[in-house]
């Protein structure tokens, strides 16, 4: 396992490469790149919660949504700076995370999944979309966010989308490194101990209440960090990106890519943001000037389902986990074959 310095160096290299990716693309793809990071944060939040601590949650998009609305409201209604908006958004998401974590102290597996799914539904139907909360949600139109800047860098979505992308990417790389550190640290071991056997963890001195709530808080905070950038890059907030299905998709794609591994979050985010857009753009036309085809967004959802089934059979540890294991197996293989004399 590489040391701290190596990890930071790897993160900087990853930043340098990924920062170049969307340069020169049209605005649509630049938006996709930024969106990929937001969903990347969403999957990263599952890496801590599910991958490390073994808890189930089907409301990660709700955390992101609460943070998005929190940030949007701070900027538009309270006229705070965008930085303050992010802080407010992450704080709101973290608080909600601790509240959602409370039932997890008693529940496990499928029951916990249902409860968190219920929370996602409630927020989707009765908070984000309900007229009762129009004062908070800004109604169906949400808020327009204009002239936003962070540290004096203008990150307004219409002109400086790439600047917002770069800041988001830097944060993503930083959080990713911190999470890998966390995995190898004492707290990470306590999370993993809870995942492998709660009984043994509690009788070996791990405070279950504290560490389960901590896992939910960290997880919700990370999802919220991504979500709080949404109003910035989209220029507005709306309920649609954070509805129940997004939470399910985050969970499904997280498992597909390998929910125990930090880099899988980047892969998953990209997959989730870019593939549907490519499908809607290029998914229709005429093949060999005879067959008309139209592969719309619906096909993306079907594809995720099929891929998930294939992955569970062929790569039970997720795409990244499997590739990693294969790479490790190649390294162990002897370099030279001994020829018989």
């Amino acid at each position, binding site marked *: 396992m590489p040391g*701290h310095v190596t990890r930071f160096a790897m993160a900087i290299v990853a930043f340098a490469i990924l920062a170049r990716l969307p340069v020169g693309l049209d605005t649509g793809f630049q938006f996709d790149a930024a969106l990929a990071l937001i969903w990347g944060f969403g999957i990263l939040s599952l890496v801590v919660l599910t991958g490390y601590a073994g808890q189930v949650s089907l409301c990660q998009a709700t955390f992101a949504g609460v943070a998005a609305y929190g940030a949007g409201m701070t900027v538009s209604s309270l006229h705070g700076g965008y930085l303050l908006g992010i802080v407010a958004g992450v704080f709101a998401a973290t608080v909600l995370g601790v509240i959602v974590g409370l039932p997890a102290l008693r529940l496990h597996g499928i029951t916990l999944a249902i409860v968190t799914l219920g929370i996602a539904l409630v927020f989707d139907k009765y908070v984000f979309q309900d007229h009762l909360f129009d004062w908070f949600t800004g109604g169906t139109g949400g808020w327009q966010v204009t002239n936003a800047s962070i540290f004096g860098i203008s990150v307004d979505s219409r002109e400086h989308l790439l600047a917002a992308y770069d800041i988001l990417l830097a944060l993503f790389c930083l959080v990713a490194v911190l999470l890998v550190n*966390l995995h190898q640290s*004492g707290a990470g071991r*306590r999370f993993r101990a809870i995942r*492998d056997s709660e009984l043994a963890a509690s009788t070996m*001195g791990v405070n279950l209440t504290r560490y389960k709530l901590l896992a939910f808080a960290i997880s919700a905070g990370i999802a919220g960090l991504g979500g709080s950038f949404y109003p910035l890059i989209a220029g507005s907030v709306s309920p649609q990106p954070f509805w129940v299905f997004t939470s399910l998709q985050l969970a499904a794609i997280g498992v597909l890519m390998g929910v125990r591994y930090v880099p899988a979050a980047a892969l998953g985010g990209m997959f989730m943001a870019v593939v549907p857009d490519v499908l809607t753009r290029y998914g229709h036309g005429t093949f060999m000037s005879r067959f008309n085809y139209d592969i719309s967004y619906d096909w993306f959802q079907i594809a995720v389902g099929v891929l998930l089934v294939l992955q569970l059979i062929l790569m039970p540890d997720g795409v990244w986990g499997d590739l990693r294991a294969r790479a490790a197996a190649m390294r162990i293989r002897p370099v030279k074959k001994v020829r018989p004399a």
Partner: protein
Amino acid sequence: MTMLRIRNLGVRFGGVVALHGVSLDLNRGEILGLIGPNGAGKTTLFNCISGVVQPSEGTIHFEGRSLRFAPPHERARRGIARTFQNLQLWGSMTVLENLQVPIDAVGRRNTLSDALGLPLSHYAERSARERARAILHVLDLDGYTQRLAADLPAGIQRRVELGRALAMQPKLVLLDEPAAGLDAGETEHLAQLLHKVRERFRVSMLLVDHDMSLVMRVCDYIYVLDFGKVLSRGEPAAVRNDQNVIAAYLGEATPELAEPEPGPTVVTGLPRTDAVEVARASGRLLEVSGLAAGYGRLEVIRDIDLTVQAGEVVACIGANGAGKTTTLRAISGVVRPRAGRVVFAGRDIAGANPERISRMGLAHIPEGRGLFPRLSVEDTLRLATDTSGKPENLAAAFDVFPRLKQRRRQAVGTLSGGEQQMVAMARAILVQPRLLMIDEMSQGLAPTIVRQLFQMIDVFRSQGIAVLLVEQFVESALAVADRAYIFEHGSIAHEAAAEELRRDRSVIAGSYLGTAAAAPGDAIEVASNGNGHHKRITDPQLMEILSMRVPAEVKRALEERAEREGRSAGALALELLEGVDR
């Protein structure tokens, strides 16, 4: 000084009284034994002490302070560590990491500093690793530090669990069946280890185990639980001679040493019915030839040739890891055979689906019984008849196991181990099998129950059902079996009539020793099986093997006589056995 003081402890699960009025004192530095038949409440008592179960009444004081409102992790930090009967290591973590978690818990680490990788955390991390390595060194686990806990064999995992408990810097360690699943050599090693651990780490221990020889050897004082109450307590010698204890735990008086082996015991008194004769006449029921199987890259068994006649009881014996379980799995199709033929009732079933094989009348009760803990007894049995398409006739099962009729509505998981095994056996016979394969039927069960279960096997035979047994209680298995196969290193080393093996024990002794680790002691030369093959056997090993888990009394008597005559117990035992032969 009293370290742990328990007064009037009571636990009820619904209507079931698991513990009632239990009082117990444990002094600093003491190793206290806790014994009793299955379902006596030993593990429940452990759960109360470690805080996993809340008692309904009574008090527990540790070092003078009440534990009433302390959650499990708080008790752990105060110095109570434990191991588990069914291993609870963190499988996806390395052995070293498994030990680091409790070390951190005592040291109270800072999460934020950990994630940022601050120098403070680096220092704490390094010292934790050093401590963990030191503990692993004492337990002879140096070679396993970086291995994932889940990949280790059960014997090693038990030792890692002990190490993890010690990493807590505990004052009291609760050991729940540390010898379960260990072979004779490993148990011997464990006994020495526990004494070493007490000296080195200055801990007191509370020990639950079924291996009476271990408990008697290791413990300073013993409590006997039966039906949730303290039946008796005292020094090992006193407990051993307590008639109440013998009646509760062993069920009946034990046979005298060196008395000629009795012939095949007719335990049930049931006459052999015509069904048996018919079944016997029909010849070979199962014929296995050249069977090989394994897991992943590992080939566990090869060249297995084995037959079972209709209505015959055949035992598979041999040391841990010799391939007995894998052989049963390959026959029933749970593991896909890699080579060889498995002919059952005239059809080759090698590689067929397990459910098709079971429908042909081959029932397999796996190690650990393979039950669904939340289903009731009745539903479990009904499920078996439903899926097999056989007529539903639960009465047949309840006739054989009347005890299950009383418990028909109870969830299987709440039954005692012996009753669970009865459910597994009842389920198997309901599908009217022609061959029943039972893997480690007696594992973790008290001798009284084991005796009853072996009687059942005789009943099955009288009903014309052939039985293929894998068994750790070699004596009992040979008493009921017609023939036996002895496994060594993944193939069959010997085949003989059970009668013959009971008379000439050197064959079995040799086979077990082939894999047992060498231990210090007087070495004796033993001729094995007349093929001129000599093996050096050490005295403690020989004691373990010759006794083949005979009751502690018999062994003790042997050791006492050896001491009187000033000779090694092994040599004496061998001489006595040879006397029986002549």
